[in-house]
């Protein structure tokens, strides 16, 4: 497995958390779109489970450090989502735009629910109400839309930094049919 891919994903998580905190969408959409579930989808479909674990731990800790969340509360939901996708990765058409959107949507819908569940279980009192449903909808749709963008972005970066694998031609000289005049 290429460690550069893992490093790129971790770097993207670091920047994604900063972007969420620095220039949010809460003012315009009423909810802040979470970029980490989309990254988890990408990592679980293209990297190993160690990459997913590192992303969940690193991204979750970074998110909680800039948030009022208790430190470490976001790690488990992110890893849980990544773990499930990684287990089923052989059955997922990862290059299909629709599959990427649906996976991003599902991951972005599950991550806040699991985090809120952990917060309530831990005795914390986050501010939720009927408006939270709208926020959940925006987060899910936003995450779904961001996931294919994430795939394209990483494909671009990989294209810029790594050699493309040579595509093997189907031509085989030993099976060439030599035709005579007739």
């Amino acid at each position, binding site marked *: 497995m290429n460690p550069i891919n893992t490093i790129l994903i971790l770097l993207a998580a670091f920047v994604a958390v*900063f972007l969420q*905190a620095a220039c949010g969408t809460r003012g315009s959409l009423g909810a802040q779109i979470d970029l980490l579930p989309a990254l988890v989808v990408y990592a679980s479909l293209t990297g190993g489970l160690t990459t997913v674990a590192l992303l969940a731990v690193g991204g979750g800790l970074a998110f909680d450090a800039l948030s*009022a969340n208790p430190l470490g509360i976001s790690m*488990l939901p992110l890893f849980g989502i990544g*773990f499930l996708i990684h287990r089923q990765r052989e059955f997922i058409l990862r290059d299909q735009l629709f599959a990427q959107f649906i996976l991003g949507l599902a991951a972005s819908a599950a991550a806040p629910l699991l985090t809120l569940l952990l917060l309530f279980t831990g005795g914390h009192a986050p*501010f939720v109400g009927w*408006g939270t449903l709208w926020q959940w909808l925006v987060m899910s749709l936003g995450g779904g839309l961001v996931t294919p963008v994430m795939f394209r972005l990483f494909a671009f970066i990989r294209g810029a930094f790594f050699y493309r694998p040579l595509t093997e031609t189907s031509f085989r000289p030993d099976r060439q049919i030599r035709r005579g005049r007739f």
Partner: protein
Amino acid sequence: MFKKKQYVVLGAVLVLTLIVLNLPGGLTARLKQALGGLYLPLFGAASATGQLGKNAAANLTPRNELVRQNEVFRRENAELRLRLLQAEAATRENARLHQLLGWQTRAPWKLKLANVVLREPANWWRTVQIDLGRRDGLRENLPVLTPDGLVGRIGAVSLTRAQVILLGDPACRAAALVQNPARDQGIINAGAAVLDPSLVNLGFLSRNAILAPGQNVVTSGQGGIFPAGIPLGTIVDFRAVEFGLYTEARVKLAANLSALEEVWVLFP
């Protein structure tokens, strides 16, 4: 073999989560500060970019517009100077009367300007981060305000940054007083609507409270954190709660919490 590795990683993340969640409070706070410190270069870059943008906008502003704005500010400054003179005379008179009656005089407020550098990335808390920290003398629970009214209080403080818990967050409560003839008192306890950060609930008001929409609400000074008299907002509506034992009102905050750029930290 592959399955086994999967479960080992799952177990490791589970154990790590449990360890981090059960760390002592002080250690967690230090760890949060350390992790937040990793973002310092990005804060610097973002601030420099913002400054560049502002400079570019300033360079693009036409000269006649700048002259017009300057004239407006000159006039406003002269008017404020006159008001200050009047306020200073009233303050002196107030202090003299306090002295005559033997009342304790209030110390003047010390304020420090701070820039809002980050907003809360999670949707279920209401906090922002400012660019002042322990090295600037900040400590927990200092009031934070804008010229319009109270914003919140200082939460966790690191060396260079501090978290401001905004009004409407369940962790920020303020003892409030309604400026009506009965001077009803209550507590601003939580936001009234998830999607509208300008609305908060004013609870624990007496069931006989004489409320009306539009009445001003200020801090009562009884909570021990916020000094008395800081504007909070105005009453929007009210209703009886807890089977009519209390009255609860919705208050529209005076300060615009969704567009905070600069705030003042108050050292009472």
